[in-house]
């Protein structure tokens, strides 16, 4: 699971959960895969992100070094910033571990890089 996905993923489908965001990350295996840098895509996606959540997610898996704590003004012209965003959003991947719902404490396992968000019949709204 990439951090771009984590930045958007919630556990709000759980019965009784309101926002289910952000999910806490517990990672036992993190890998880096190289992805082509596409500044246009990164520029477009940044306004949709919760940057604070991104920074804390990166920090919780030991990848916050050098990552700005907030979006820099005029980031569209700042290639260094865009590259850092690119790396943390698309190249860092959580392979094994689990996510935890902030409201219910329900854990969602991540295995082979895929978070399992399937609910039990009793958990469905």
């Amino acid at each position, binding site marked *: 699971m990439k951090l771009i*996905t984590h930045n*958007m993923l919630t556990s*709000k489908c759980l019965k009784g959960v309101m926002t289910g965001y952000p999910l806490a990350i517990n990672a036992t295996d993190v890998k880096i895969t190289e992805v082509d840098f596409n500044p246009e895509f990164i520029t477009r996606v940044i306004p*949709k992100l919760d940057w604070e959540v991104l920074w804390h997610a990166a920090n919780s898996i030991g990848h916050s070094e050098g990552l700005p704590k907030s979006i820099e003004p005029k980031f569209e012209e700042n290639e260094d910033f865009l590259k850092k965003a690119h790396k943390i959003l698309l190249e860092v991947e959580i392979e094994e571990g689990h996510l935890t719902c902030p409201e219910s404490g329900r854990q969602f396992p991540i295995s*082979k890089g895929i978070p399992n968000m399937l609910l039990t019949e009793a958990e*469905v*709204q």
Partner: protein
Amino acid sequence: MSKRPEHQAPPEVFYNEDEARKYTQNSRIIDIQAQMTERCLELLLLPEDIPCLLLDLGCGSGLSGSVLEENGHMWIGLDISPSMLDVALERETEGDLVLADMGEGIPFKAGCFDGAISVSALQWLFNADKKSHRPVKRLYTFFSTLYASLSRSARAVFQFYPENESQLELLTTQAMKAGFYGGVVIDYPNSAKAKKFFLVLMTGGSGPLPKALGADEVEDNIQVKYARREAAKAARGKPLKNTKAWLLEKKERRRKQGKETKPDTKYTGRKRSGRF
């Protein structure tokens, strides 16, 4: 026994390791899925030459996702079958994958995606695979959470295999209830082989439904028959209840029966409240 996969077993059982591999290696399937994904993209009307973030619903082994990549987009895929997702991993697709049942809702926060596509998956939602499954409720949960996850003016386009007309009505009714507008576009309606159904859902603005391929003009009315409640009812020859046409017809009937009826004026059947 029916040949439809969704009649045979729940999706996560039908698409087991064996089936997932067979499916993804079949060159005929690869071609068809690619073609239908291209058409979904076309119907999505994304801004030209801009890399977008798309959601692929029932992404399977990533045959549809590969086409999104070729077109320069990043995608996040959601599927209920672990075996299909395993094959997607083997194929090293660029999309990020989530194991989830779309009938339980789309687990993303508001306004994330520039658009959503779904190729050959939606018909599975008509199933009741568990005791607790109620298809109507699952469809509504699905559409309403999908609506929330899309950015404003984004579209969702589904290629799917409906079994009958009532499924089309059920789909459009639940989608409209969830806030979407749009309808079903039928490409090549006169060809048994090439005929394809696309549910095109829009979140904002008020564009007309896109034109179907391979349909002549007379047929156009039929193409978008599900686009609006009005059109669907009109096709059956009766005016839609509570519209001006319906009121006028009703008053005419009363007059013929000799009942006391107010004269028709320019106020007859006028809307009193805001627009739909």
